[in-house]
């Protein structure tokens, strides 16, 4: 007859603990070895991967790929980024100096995850490395994905594939951080091949802290998602806030699983009476609920202010958090699209005329700028991978979508502009554009 739970329950418990562990492990490790092919033929060979779409201008000799998450909450943004890249190449007549180019967009996300996926990132990087036609990659969107792809592309044969990110903000990809072996672990060959056109999080944290100070915030409580990006930007915010004389009441991790209710968490925080909350995380990690519960317990965002990094700077945040999003501040690297001048304004106009988007997303011009950096590097090169990678560094880009800027020897842009948006009447509108002073921008020696 009936036996009460004994062995069956044990087996069950083991199964579910394993299942949870598997579900929690949101990819951080990978071991990859780039292997390579020979030199380039006449027309580029498309990358052999189901995540890659068809090649645009297939007659081009050198293949430029893009690697962005095309599923989930960032798909509105990433679709535009691919369109922007294509438009820049088209305007250049699909030519970089004496070389003709082809473009192939690839996807580093899965529908299930709704965001970048570590296995897909690694697989994509290996696919590029194995295709001798691939000369450069524009991507990734997420820093976590770049951490996996950069070393693979760096070790590709024959020669490292140049990688230019329009959106990675984790400082460690180009410079030293508190994390061991950054940035050297991203270029195992010893020669750098990664550059980006946005200012990293050591600018973003201070930009949010400066905004908080300007709004009269005296004390703040920080929440982070424990991931490299979220915890990282939270730490940069904390350090800058302390330097600015804002009292930091705590910096703790929160549970990012769907269905989690955060009211108890905020009740605990309420007892500390903060003027503001800062969250280092992403909207797709139950972020909407976090914002709703913040407002339910601590009151609306005009009373206890809410500061969020660019993981939240998307219209999805407004959709998910509803009315609770009103009055939140969210930062994004770079200059807002409506404040671009010269070539940038022309680009935005051309883009609107061609694709008729409901609005131009913040990273769209940055994708265009990354494409311009790639064109410049190919133009200055001898057509080999190594030469294109080498020409990324020290590149002077004049009259680009973002104005004139240069890429330094580490692969960082000399533009440190950050935009802070505020949610007003269900829309993110620019609150201010600022460049944090160098004394607030934390840097660490390369490791």
């Amino acid at each position, binding site marked *: *007859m009936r036996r*009460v739970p004994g062995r069956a329950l044990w087996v069950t418990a083991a199964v579910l603990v394993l299942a949870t562990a598997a579900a929690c492990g949101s990819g951080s490790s990978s071991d990859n070895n780039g292997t390579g092919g020979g030199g380039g033929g006449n027309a580029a060979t498309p990358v052999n991967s189901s995540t890659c779409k068809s090649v645009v201008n297939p007659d081009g000799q050198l293949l430029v790929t893009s690697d962005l998450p095309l599923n989930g909450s960032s798909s509105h943004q990433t679709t535009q980024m691919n369109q922007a890249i294509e438009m820049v190449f088209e305007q250049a007549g699909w030519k970089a100096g004496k070389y003709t180019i082809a473009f192939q967009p690839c996807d580093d996300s899965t529908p299930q995850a709704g965001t970048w996926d570590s296995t897909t990132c690694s697989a994509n990087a290996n696919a590029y490395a194995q295709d001798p036609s691939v000369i450069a990659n524009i991507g990734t969107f997420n820093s976590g994905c770049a951490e996996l792809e950069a070393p693979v592309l760096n070790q590709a044969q024959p020669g490292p594939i140049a990688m230019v990110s329009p959106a990675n903000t984790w400082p460690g990809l180009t410079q030293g951080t508190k994390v061991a072996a950054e940035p050297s672990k991203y270029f195992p060959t010893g020669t750098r091949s990664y550059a980006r056109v946005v200012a990293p999080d050591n600018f973003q944290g201070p930009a949010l802290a400066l905004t908080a100070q300007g709004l009269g915030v005296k004390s703040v409580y920080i929440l982070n998602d424990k991931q490299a990006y979220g915890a990282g930007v939270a730490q940069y915010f904390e350090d800058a806030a302390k330097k600015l004389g804002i009292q930091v009441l705590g910096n703790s991790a929160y549970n990012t*699983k769907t269905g989690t209710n955060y009211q108890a968490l905020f009740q*605990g925080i309420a*007892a500390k009476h903060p003027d503001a909350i800062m969250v280092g995380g992403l909207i797709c990690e139950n972020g909407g609920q976090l914002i709703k519960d913040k407002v339910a317990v601590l009151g609306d965002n005009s009373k206890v202010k809410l500061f969020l990094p660019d993981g939240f700077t998307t219209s999805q945040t407004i959709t998910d958090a509803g009315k609770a999003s009103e009055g939140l501040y969210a930062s994004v690297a770079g200059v807002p699209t409506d404040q671009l001048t010269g070539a940038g304004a022309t680009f935005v106009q051309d883009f609107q005329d061609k694709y008729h988007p409901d609005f131009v997303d913040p990273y769209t011009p940055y994708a265009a700028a990354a494409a311009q950096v790639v064109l410049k590097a190919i133009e200055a090169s001898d057509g080999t991978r190594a030469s294109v990678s080498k020409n990324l560094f020290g590149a002077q880009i004049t009259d680009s979508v973002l104005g004139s800027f240069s890429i330094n020897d580490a692969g960082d842009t000399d533009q440190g502009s950050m935009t802070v948006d505020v949610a007003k009447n269900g829309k993110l509108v620019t609150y201010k554009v600022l460049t944090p002073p160098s004394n607030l921008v934390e840097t660490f020696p390369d490791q």
Partner: protein
Amino acid sequence: MTAESGTARRPMLAALPRFSQQINRVLTWVVVGLFVVWVVGNFINAPKQFVSVFLLGVTLGSIYALVALGYTLVYGIIELINFAHGDVFMWGSMIAVTVSAHWLGLDGSQGWYVTAPLIFVTLLACIAFCGTLNVAIERLAYRPLRNAPKLAPLITAIGMSFILQNAGALVYGFIEQPVPDIFPTKPLFRIGGIAYTQKSLLIVLITIPVLLALVYLVRSTRQGKAMRAVAQDMDASRMMGIDVDRTIAFTFALGGALAGAAGLLFVMYQTSTRYDLGFQLGLFAFTAAVLGGIGNLTGAAFGALLIGLIQAFNEGLSWHTPGSSWTQSVIFSILILVLVFRPQGLLGEAVSDRA
């Protein structure tokens, strides 16, 4: 009903040499003692905060209870841990969003005399959908395996869980499904500046009669008697003229209905849901069922209340508290501790209403 014929269950470690019984007992008391000290310490440290967090825990526990009862009902009758149950609950929450917000157009702006009947209609829709879904799962996936080794239906249940989850994603997409605040959110009173809303009370007020009705059904009705008989001995029940398949199907319908009701309450409370909702919440509810003594109705409700409170305490209190990101670890540690020291659960001995 019944029961455990046979010897009273003994803790797992009792299988080891005799002295381990003492260790077992001492450790149990140490764990319970530490927990009491921690709770009392937090109360003394910040009494107002403690009370408001406690009330929140009761609301969370009420929702968990409705889900936990579904696990325990099914376990009680066919000794299957129905892992798909959390996902039936997720479907309940999705149907609640579709019916209340999309079809009936509720957005919180209507008066209570409009909202209340339409919410009731939504509740009926959730109950009907999830009840039918659970019966269909039983018919298609579990009944053919009723005489197979225990592991087969268990794995099938895990598979069912993935199927339901992916179906949810297919229909509703991978993003959050938000609903406006439909339940009244006015504060009833404030403790230390923290509002206790009408919504929170409403959740508890709806849960209690549902639990009482369920206990009444299992203990005092003819159908309940049949359920208890089937749980005790399927073959003997069949000889007594009980339609075993029908009784089991009824139990699944009941469990599904509870999950549907829980889905509605959850989404009204939380105001959003997503395709993977059933995963964490299902596991919490399963832990609650084990904590109370799986198969025991009162135990499941009691265990759910405890899990709700422990979660709220862990996240909302400040004296020696691990914090939000440790909630899963804390709750699954409890699951392991219960399995080691008291596999029959806290109320496992009270077998009278085992279904």
